[in-house]
């Protein structure tokens, strides 16, 4: 048996054989909470995910990309009992993790879209760099929120102000900024109360406009400034505007007269009785990892009690994002097998399952089709271009444009990504099944392509099939699949050469197993 086959055999064993001991334990507050929850619901939790499944899941969730076959091999042959915990620790400290997670967070800050006007309104390069540094240095989340809500001044010197500048459009009152801030930092959807008392919640229209007063003086004058007087010629907003209301936070607190409004807003946001700011972050992080909300909505009951418990833990641990992520991804519930029925998943008796988000998808797409050079050339072209606006000459910004492209493939335009999972549009399906350029990138005869590299690195049909499987769905082919596909490529080799391998890659790239994080 040659060495490659030995590795394949080893992989198959470690992937589908007996499980390692779970590295999680009763010390993890999430595990402690779920052990009671499952008993109360009479649910039986699924078995732990295999190393292969776990490794794919955690790489997509923390690095936003697929693991490479070499990484998978190294991880699966590692026999250390606490290798999952060590892996998570290593990943959480990596630049790659900070870059990916900060981009996901930035995407929420910009409300998942950048129009050409938005690029004029805010300086996205400094904001993206700033958010990344916060994640990289694990700056306490309360400090990040404070900067976003209370910084004022130069968009270059205080990059956090670009968050507000992005949402300060031509509207007479900055409703968008208030709505976004309530959603991001308090986990509250206050939109209905702009025009009338909230039909489900307990918020009145008066309270909405009291909250608005914290944002009303903000102006986008290139930099973020405060001005008491309304803009010249400002018309009354047509949607429910109330004027002359005193600034009042959502829980009724009023700012001291000598306190700057931004500071007061940050103080209130970070100190609500229900720990709303922490709970909102935990809910967002949970949604990112499990594809489901942790907090209840008016139409859906969720695990608010767990969220409250985690909020206490999060604040006790110094508002550390890194520790929060560690707690979740090392928990038993995160590391479970995701196979199961919808009803199992509703009780968290099956592990997480969700489609890749646009940022993951774009990164995976770039890797699979080896587009790094193409993108680099594109940056250079934009940099040298005389007609491209200054803001686009920053590679930080160009990347955001790529993410926008991916989003529109995954989710029909006009659908709110906060409320709808983007699992792929018919247009995306057509593109992946049939687009000429994409088809040319799955060319087995083109050296630099992923398939081209596999073809020159591996010579036997079994090895090639397994390597294609490892690269795309990050597991070796099952016995049945291996037999079927090896038979397929060998039978056709006589007159089709390497082309049948393209068919195998095509199948995997168009599969749900590829697109979903499971």
């Amino acid at each position, binding site marked *: 048996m040659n060495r490659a086959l030995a590795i394949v055999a080893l992989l198959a064993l470690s992937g589908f054989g007996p499980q390692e001991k779970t590295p999680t334990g009763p010390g993890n507050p999430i595990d402690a909470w779920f052990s009671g929850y499952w008993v109360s619901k009479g649910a039986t939790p699924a078995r732990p995910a295999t190393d292969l499944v776990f490794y794919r899941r955690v790489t997509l969730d923390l690095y936003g990309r697929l693991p490479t076959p070499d990484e998978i091999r190294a991880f699966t042959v590692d026999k250390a009992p606490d290798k999952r915990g060590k892996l998570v620790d290593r990943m959480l400290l990596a630049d790659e993790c900070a870059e990916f997670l900060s981009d996901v967070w930035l995407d929420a800050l910009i409300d998942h879209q950048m129009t050409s006007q938005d690029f004029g309104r805010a300086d996205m390069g400094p904001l993206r760099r700033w958010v990344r540094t916060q994640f990289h240095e694990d700056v306490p989340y309360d400090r990040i929120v404070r900067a976003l809500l209370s910084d004022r001044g130069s968009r270059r010197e205080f990059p956090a102000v670009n968050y507000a500048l992005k949402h300060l459009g031509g509207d007479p009152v900055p409703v968008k900024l208030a709505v976004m801030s309530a959603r991001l930092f308090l986990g509250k959807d206050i939109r209905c109360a702009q025009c009338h008392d909230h039909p489900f919640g307990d918020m009145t229209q008066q309270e909405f406009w009291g909250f608005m007063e914290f944002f009303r003086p903000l102006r986008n004058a290139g930099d973020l400034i405060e001005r008491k007087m309304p803009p010249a010629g400002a018309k009354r907003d047509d949607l429910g505007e109330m004027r002359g209301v005193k600034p009042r936070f959502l829980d009724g607190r009023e700012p001291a007269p000598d306190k700057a409004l931004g500071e007061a807003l940050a103080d209130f946001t970070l100190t609500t009785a229900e720990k709303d700011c922490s709970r909102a972050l935990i809910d967002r992080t949970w949604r990112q990892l499990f594809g489901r909300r942790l907090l209840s909505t008016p139409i859906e009951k969720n695990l608010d009690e767990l969220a409250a418990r985690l909020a206490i833990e999060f604040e006790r641990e110094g508002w550390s994002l890194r520790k929060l992520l560690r707690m979740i991804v090392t928990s038993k519930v995160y590391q479970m097998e995701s*196979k199961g029925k919808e009803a199992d998943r509703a009780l968290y008796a099956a592990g997480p399952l969700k*489609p890749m988000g646009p940022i993951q998808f774009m990164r995976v797409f770039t890797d699979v089709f080896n587009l790094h050079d193409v993108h680099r050339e594109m940056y250079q072209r934009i940099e040298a271009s005389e007609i491209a606006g200054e803001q686009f000459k920053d590679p930080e910004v160009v990347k955001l444009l790529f993410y926008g492209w991916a989003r529109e493939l995954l989710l029909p335009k*006009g659908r709110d990504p906060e409320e709808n999972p983007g699992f792929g549009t018919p247009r995306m399906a*057509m593109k992946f*099944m*049939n687009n000429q350029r994409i088809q040319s990138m799955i060319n087995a005869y083109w050296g630099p392509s992923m398939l081209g590299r596999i073809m020159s690195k591996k010579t036997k049909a079994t090895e090639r099939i397994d390597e294609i499987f490892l690269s795309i769905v990050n597991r070796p082919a099952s016995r049945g699949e291996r037999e079927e596909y090896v038979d397929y490529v060998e039978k056709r080799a006589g007159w089709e050469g390497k082309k049948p391998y393209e068919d195998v890659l*095509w199948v995997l790239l*168009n599969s749900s197993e590829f697109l*979903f994080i499971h």
Partner: protein
Amino acid sequence: MTDCTCSRRGFLRLSVAMSAGSALAAKFGIPLLAQEATGPVKAKRCIVLWMMGAPSQMDTWDPKPGTETGGPFEAIETTASGIKIGQHLPFTAKQMKHLSLIRTVNSHDPNHDTAQYLLHTAYRKAADIEHPHLGSIVASELGMEVDDLPPAVVIGSAPPAGCGYLPAEWAPVVFDRLADPAEDVLPVQNNPRERLARRWRMLQQFEAGFAEQHEDKRIQARRQACEKAYKVLTSERVKAFDVRQEPLEVRNLYGNTDFGRACLMARRLAESGVRFVEVMYGDWDTHADNFERVKTLCTDIDRPMAALVEDLNRRGMLKDTLILWMGEFGRTPKINAANGRDHWTTWSVALGGGGIQPGRVIGRTDALGMSIAERGVPVNDLFATIYHAFGIQTDKKLIQVPRPMKVIDGGSPVRELF
């Protein structure tokens, strides 16, 4: 249908069906009911030629030659008596007998992004809700004509709105590379359809295992999206995307340019059962060097647009195909220091077919084009006119939650056009 509309009980039954959901209502024949409410219905499909960046009305549909704002261009006679248009639209001038103009469309929004949204949805961009694209509403209200082509298609660029709060099936399918819009759908070189069919069979087999093990609505929905895509790719009708199948004479009529081919594709798609096609073109944002640029842009669009009108008419399709030529706003009559024109919120829209009376001019700007002298047409009236042509009731509530949203919020059709 007769039962439903003629007897009181039938009418009640229909009302219940309508409030029960648009799918049911469509089944009971909303267009016919709308016809009774709003007069004769002609339009069954729509082609929009969207001029990105806001074209200058002064140098196209509302010329003021010889005045201080008129610029260097002349106005030329057209086949519609009494209507003169800019000199760089000579082909269109010959087809003017089929078209009408609204010269006083107006709004309050001089910003590209939000105005493009407004002129695609009839709504101001809001913080809390995304409104549907005009094409999504036309397609969803009229229903699918065929199920193996998308109900609405946008060619050339990403549109500013999508399906909004309507079901995702009504989202316009976007083919955003004007140079090669059919790249996603036409058979790939060296990869015949048999290969696609074989790959598809292999995929179905591969998918079954994962989908069975992971029961999930999102996975099911994704597989349905793929099935829909496959249906289009393998349909006979997909040839509608292939303009090379058109006789040379017709291809020459539209001209051998990206925009020309896109207009021809629009006609082929409309003919094959796509309810709504939009072709997006330009950069009409001529703050500098307006006249040279408008001359080039007019030359780009003139022959294809004229060909589209002529071709539709020749095929007898013009009577039930509404054509619209529009942009997000207009440009200043005053010429700036860079020989350009800036943003201006009164402008012209050209429209024809689909029951629109040809050869009419609605509204008049003053001698210098500086103000509306007669009959302003606000954006909502323009949309009311478009929907009226299709017999779509504009006060119909498309959704109730999170709040009731009408097709448009107010506005009356321009009756003089019908």
